[in-house]
């Protein structure tokens, strides 16, 4: 991705997956990188197992924290169905989608009324938008609530947000957690980068 004037980052997942932390780390890291930011998270009802989204806008000439359909430079998804939804609704043509390859089945799938979203469905949707797809998964992660850190490390490794540096993320993580939790997250983050 080129370092253009404005960058829209659309994050999507299922309530309970820890999208709030991911979004909070990113907005703080962007701020530490001296970028102008606006963001917003889903609160309230949808947090109970529904689709949750966080939006982050970086750059000059931005007002609302809300991203327009089809204009997200980057879609970060924590789950397959939500990755597909993010691509369909928000990803801009030739954008980047980075998703954690796990599935929290929707009610329709569990009732055998709809089919589960597969990796191929995501790739097909991305092709239609000529977008780049990055699939992320870590075997034996232990704590599923750290999937967001795996995504974060991949974003840094691939230099998807060139203005935000490793130190910015680490300072942000230190703002948001302490003790064992911080240590576990930092250890994982660092190990994934090496």
């Amino acid at each position, binding site marked *: 991705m080129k370092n253009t004037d404005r960058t829209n980052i659309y994050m999507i997942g299922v*309530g*309970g997956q820890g999208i709030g932390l991911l979004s909070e780390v990113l*907005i*703080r890291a962007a*701020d530490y990188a001296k970028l*102008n*930011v*606006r*963001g*917003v*998270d*889903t*609160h*309230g*009802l*949808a*947090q*109970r*197992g*529904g*689709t949750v989204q966080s939006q982050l806008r970086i750059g000059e*000439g*931005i*007002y*609302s*924290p*809300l991203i*327009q*359909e*089809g204009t997200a430079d980057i879609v970060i998804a924590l789950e397959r*169905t*939500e990755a*597909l*939804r993010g691509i*369909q609704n928000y990803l801009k*043509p030739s954008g980047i989608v980075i998703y954690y390859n*796990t*599935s*929290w*089945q*929707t*009610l*329709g*799938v*569990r*009732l*055998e009324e*709809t089919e589960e*979203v597969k990796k191929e469905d995501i790739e097909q*949707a991305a092709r*239609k*938008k000529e977008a780049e797809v990055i699939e992320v998964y870590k075997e034996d992660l232990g704590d*599923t609530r750290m999937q967001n850190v795996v995504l974060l490390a991949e974003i840094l490794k691939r230099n998807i947000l060139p203005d935000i540096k490793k130190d910015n993320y680490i300072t942000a993580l*230190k*703002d*948001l*957690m*302490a003790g*064992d939790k*911080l240590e576990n997250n930092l250890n994982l983050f660092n190990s994934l980068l090496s």
Partner: protein
Amino acid sequence: MKSMGDMLLRENDFSEIVMGNTALVRAMIESGTRVVTSYPGSPMPETAEAIRSIPKEDRPFYFEFSTNEKVATEIAFGASVNGHFSTVFFKSVGLNVAADSFVQLPLMKLKGGMVVVIGDDPGANSSQNEQDNRHYAHLSYMPVFEPSNPQEVYEFYKEAAQISQEREMPVILRLSTHVCHAKQKVNFKGYKPFEFDDTPQFSSQDENYVPITSKVFPMKRRALKRIKDFQSYADDSKLNELIDNQNKDKGIITMGVPYLSLRDVMEDMDDKPDILKLGVIYPLPRKVIAEFLKNHKEVKILEELDNVLEKDIKVIAFEENINTQIIGKVDIEDWINEYTPDKVQEVMAKSWPNTFQPKDLIRFEKKAENRPAQLCPGCGHRSAFYAIKKALSKEDITVADIGCHTLGFLPPYEMGEVLLSMGHSTSTGTGLSLFNKDRKVVSFLGDSTMFHAGLPGIVNAIFNDHNLTLVIMENDTTAMTGHQNHAGTGANFNKEVEPITIKEMLEGFGVKNVYEIDTYAQSKLTEIMKDAVNEEGFSVVIATHPCMLQFTRQARKKGAYKDNKAQIDQEVCRQIHECVQEFGCPSFSIDKEGKVTVNDDLCIGDGSCIQTCPIDAIEMNLSKEGSK
């Protein structure tokens, strides 16, 4: 780790990334707010989380979650007439509950000043409607300020606080969901902690506080005069802003979230209309608006929800004899949903298609399946709905109320078929029971909601001897809004207190048949429900189980969480699918061949599913050690 509490009390200038709800708390502190009250409701509860981050002994104001919005309003009022600057905050529909007392506020001399913060919810993200509370300003003669982003939340509250204290009148600060939850870097001013004079100042000698019969008129006269006098403030207020793009033809009058959306939509346009962004939205800045109208050939009024500005502005144009073409709402869709940038694009294109050209989007035929909210893994309400459904026939009528258990309306339970408002269920159920001998009526009601507005309906069912069954879905918290305490939990916002025991309370009221059972005892609950619905008169079943989301979080904090997981014995499983499709815990996954497995990311090892399998194919995989 950064401490929000320390930040909120910092005495020098600083800036920090915060959401609107947090910026609001800093503004309360800087303004010398002395008493703050609320009842939990989205989009406002994070305001209380910010307050909680300040240790109680350091908190410069008293805060409580009251039992409902009306009570909260009355407490803030009582504090204000005693000389304390106070604030009450709650969600959109909370104002309906508060309204009986709220509409009286302008009649009173509010010695300490009082700000009412309302979190409206365009888009009905977490509400049963998207009512536009700007209407209440006309009804109650109260000025309304509306910020569009967190920086403005901070500044507008401080302004509202000052006006309210100077003029001893109530002021409304109207927020909306994406103002409350928007995050940005806010520049905060330093402040010096206040030294409060807590001498009680209430005096009924100097001032009449009892509006009864002819006493109402002088009070109403004063309220009207105050709002009329406020007009000159509105006209000079720095909260209104003109964005001058040198456009003599087209102008747009807007406010709040639609303003931000409009700026984004216009950002890359060449021929930008001028914008008048209103911060004081009642009473309208008449001169400023007349001037703006005169300077343009066409003016579009861009406002989300109802046509409140439009009507007032058209009156101004009529009275001032201005011939500018004023374009308001075009069709019904303009009245519906939040004015996001996409929506604003759509709305503006209807009036000025050449200026606001629609985008060409890549569309998909097969959309990803919607994922509405659902009951959490282990939720006691799931066991309750699953068990209660077995006790009822298909024709019986179930009445929902507000809370997590409203989600029982969705498949596979489909329990709770009608919903009005907080606490309505017993009385709506009562109405459904009249002239009804054939279909049993069962109403559901959460514990926090019962204390909020459910008690009058219960008392009425006893008083008028009605025939229905009420199921109290007790989970020992106000779960949906983020686990706030209520009168039955044993603690308030500030300290531990003696809990009100629901069963004892109902027996004290005189309910003859009160059953109480843990919802995980599913077959017993089914039997109890059969008895309860077959009894003549009003019966109550307290279906209790702690909120498992809260329970699991607390256990994790204490290091007491056991990482147990349910698992399916594939040798035994015959794919009956009772667990995944009838009980419906989201922890179960199913593959194309119908094989059921447990998603370990979701399962909390509560074991409530084990009893649902008719052939005992679910077992518990016990973790060897506690996990954090």
